């Protein structure tokens, strides 16, 4: 057991944090959101220049071949800075599916444009699409909803039957209705009518699962970063805001609430670490259980921290101009994306949970 970051990981953390704090102060965020694509093109380019967009992909695909811990480091900074860029949708979700599920040559070709940031890709986790074999290829019909990052995507990875398929946004028969999301970023609803793809567009179904798991791990890191930042701000506010002639943080009711928040924020950090290390777990059942637990916990923690940090800020906490109200929205969204808390708990229960009913001493 060793929970220290390596020297390289510490350097990555420093440079990502510096990028976010220098380039992405909260005052700029509204401007970025108002840009035509809903995020900062300049920031997106810088993330690519730093290599962040190449981080999780194997070296044979032109990537850096780094792992879950490095992704967690990026995710925490993204969560703290409330970044709007399509890192989760394009790099983590669609990128992982393509890197691990497409044939190598095809994956390298698609990823080269994704890693430069030129192509934004998106993956659907909720879809009802049928795939039928037709002469010389496959025909896709159906619909997908809430495809994260889909409003800006040029390439989609869509589940159909027991596979995934890469589909260009301009493919004939595909209609895309994009929209913005509360909490930042955008998504799209898709309809497919006779969309044709070739065998080279095939993505293995296990890679679709790995992509969702990587997405949840990234959301956990975002939640860890955002909850820690929201707590830091709140504790600072409790120390400086005065009412009745003394700092409000001298009231025991508020001190205890802050302590309860720290307990939950530590849980969020633990969830992020656990999720990062699950990326290296080889047993799919263990990964499935772990991922369900991680998502359920960050959903619950995120909602508690969102609600209570707004509460402790009082009136200013509900204003658009205060960052705490943005953490509130992002944390709420994180809890609901890629499977909400109730769905994850049902899944964990269906998988039998972590403890078996048999007596412990009977276990080998």
């Amino acid at each position, binding site marked *: *057991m*060793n*929970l*220290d*970051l390596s020297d390289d*990981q510490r350097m990555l953390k420093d440079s990502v944090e510096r990028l976010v704090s220098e380039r992405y102060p909260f005052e700029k965020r509204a401007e970025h959101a108002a840009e035509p694509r809903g995020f900062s093109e300049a920031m997106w380019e810088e993330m690519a220049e730093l290599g962040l967009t190449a981080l999780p992909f194997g070296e044979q695909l032109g990537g850096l071949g780094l792992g879950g*811990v490095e992704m967690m480091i990026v995710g925490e900074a993204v969560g703290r800075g409330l970044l709007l860029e399509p890192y989760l949708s394009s790099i983590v979700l669609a990128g992982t599916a393509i890197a691990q599920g497409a044939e190598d040559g095809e994956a390298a070709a698609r990823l080269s444009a994704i890693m430069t940031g030129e192509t934004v890709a998106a993956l659907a986790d909720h879809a009802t699409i049928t795939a039928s074999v037709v002469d010389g290829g496959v025909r896709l019909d159906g619909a997908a909803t809430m495809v994260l990052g889909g409003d800006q995507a040029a390439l989609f990875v869509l589940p159909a039957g027991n596979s995934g398929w890469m589909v260009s946004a301009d493919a004939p028969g595909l209609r895309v209705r994009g929209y913005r999301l509360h909490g930042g970023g955008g998504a799209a609803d898709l309809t497919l009518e006779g969309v044709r793809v070739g065998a080279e567009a095939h993505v293995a179904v296990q890679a679709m699962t790995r992509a969702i798991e990587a997405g949840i791990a990234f959301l956990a890191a975002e939640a860890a970063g955002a909850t820690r930042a929201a707590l830091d701000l709140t*504790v600072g506010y*409790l*120390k400086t805001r005065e009412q009745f002639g003394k700092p409000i*943080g*001298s009231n*025991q009711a*508020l*001190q*205890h609430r*802050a*302590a*309860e928040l*720290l*307990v939950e924020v*530590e*849980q969020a*950090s*633990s*969830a992020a*670490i*656990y999720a*990062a*290390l699950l990326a290296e777990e080889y047993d799919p059942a263990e990964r499935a259980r*772990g991922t*369900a*637990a*991680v998502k*359920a*916990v960050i959903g*619950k923690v995120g909602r508690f921290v969102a609600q209570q940090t707004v509460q402790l800020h009082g009136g200013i906490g509900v204003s658009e101009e205060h960052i705490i109200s943005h953490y509130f929205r992002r944390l709420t969204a994180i809890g609901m994306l890629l499977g909400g808390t109730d769905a*994850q*708990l*049902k899944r*964990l*229960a269906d998988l039998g*949970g*972590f*403890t*078996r*009913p*048999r*007596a*412990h*001493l009977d*276990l080998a």
Partner: protein
Amino acid sequence: MDLRFTAEEEAFRREVRAFIRDNLDPVTHRKMVDGRVPTKDEIVAWQRALNRRGWATPSWPKEAGGPGFSAAERYIFLDELHQAPAPEPLSFNVGMIGPVIHAFGTSAQKERFLAATANIDIWWAQGFSEQSAGSDLAALRTTARREGDAYVVDGHKLWQGMAHHADWMFTLVRTDPGAPKRQMGISFLLIDLRSPGITIRPIVTLDGRHEVNEVFLDEVRVPLDCLVGAENAGWDVTKFLLSNERTGIARIGMTKHLIRRVKRLAGTDEAMMRKAAAIEAELKILEITQLRILDAQQGSNTPDPRSSVLKLKGVELRQAASELLLEAAGPKALEVVGDDEPFGSGDDEWLGTIMPNYAILRAASIYGGSSEVQKTIVAKTLLGLG
């Protein structure tokens, strides 16, 4: 980063599990599985079995006669006991007074008490709380005045867990009522419970059982060589003891055992399994928090203030699991059944203890620093509030 234990640590886990399987008396084990309270003899027999193996005092360093476990080994050892479940080494002896005598005792005291404490040749009771001194321990009123070769102790102590089994009691007494600060007039005394002037009375708790007691001390003469640390310096000794009590073990394995019982009782009920999953999800993540603190503690002896975080969440989940077990058992759990009723057939879940154990577990957020005290500690030490 790596959360996995080393191959040696995994082998150690298997060794501990096998040891428990081969050495824990089957009747004691069945009682632990059922949530019944083992007898004094059963607890002592188990501790002595551990002691023969060199494992009775997992938190003690080698020079105190302990096994010299690393932080990870200590965690694994206790986790296996909690999950088995087997009795923990007697906390008054092993978690509290042993380390105090090792750190503050004279060489004569170490010689006299350490080995006997590890083997429970002496069973210790804790004499801290009083009627007006609970969370505010420094408000204690029991006094000791020097008279020749002895202290003469007068007062009343409350909540002595298993003191009816005990031979000795480590006790906080006020030796200087005029000290400028209350904490500066307190001393730490070891008192032989067979001394004249001592009366131990049972307190029956909300589970209907007798586990805690009150102890009356009426002109009890305590030899001067039973003082630990300097006179009036007992508060430092106490802080050391309490910080050991908080060195971060969330007793996750005990909660796992409760969840196992829920599954055995209600494994086909989907709503119950959903609630079990909600506890298990948080428990799994708490295990990571536990390992993070453990990792930070490797090679350091100072307690991590985040241990309070661990205690708060650990107790919350354990109480939630015991509440779920009560729900899983249903109204049949209300039938009053004595702990000494004969065992049922091998595979039956014993419902008789579920309600009493649910009830007494409310105390877990009260003793060892109540959850409210823990929150104040967290706010002050970790968040800088107040």
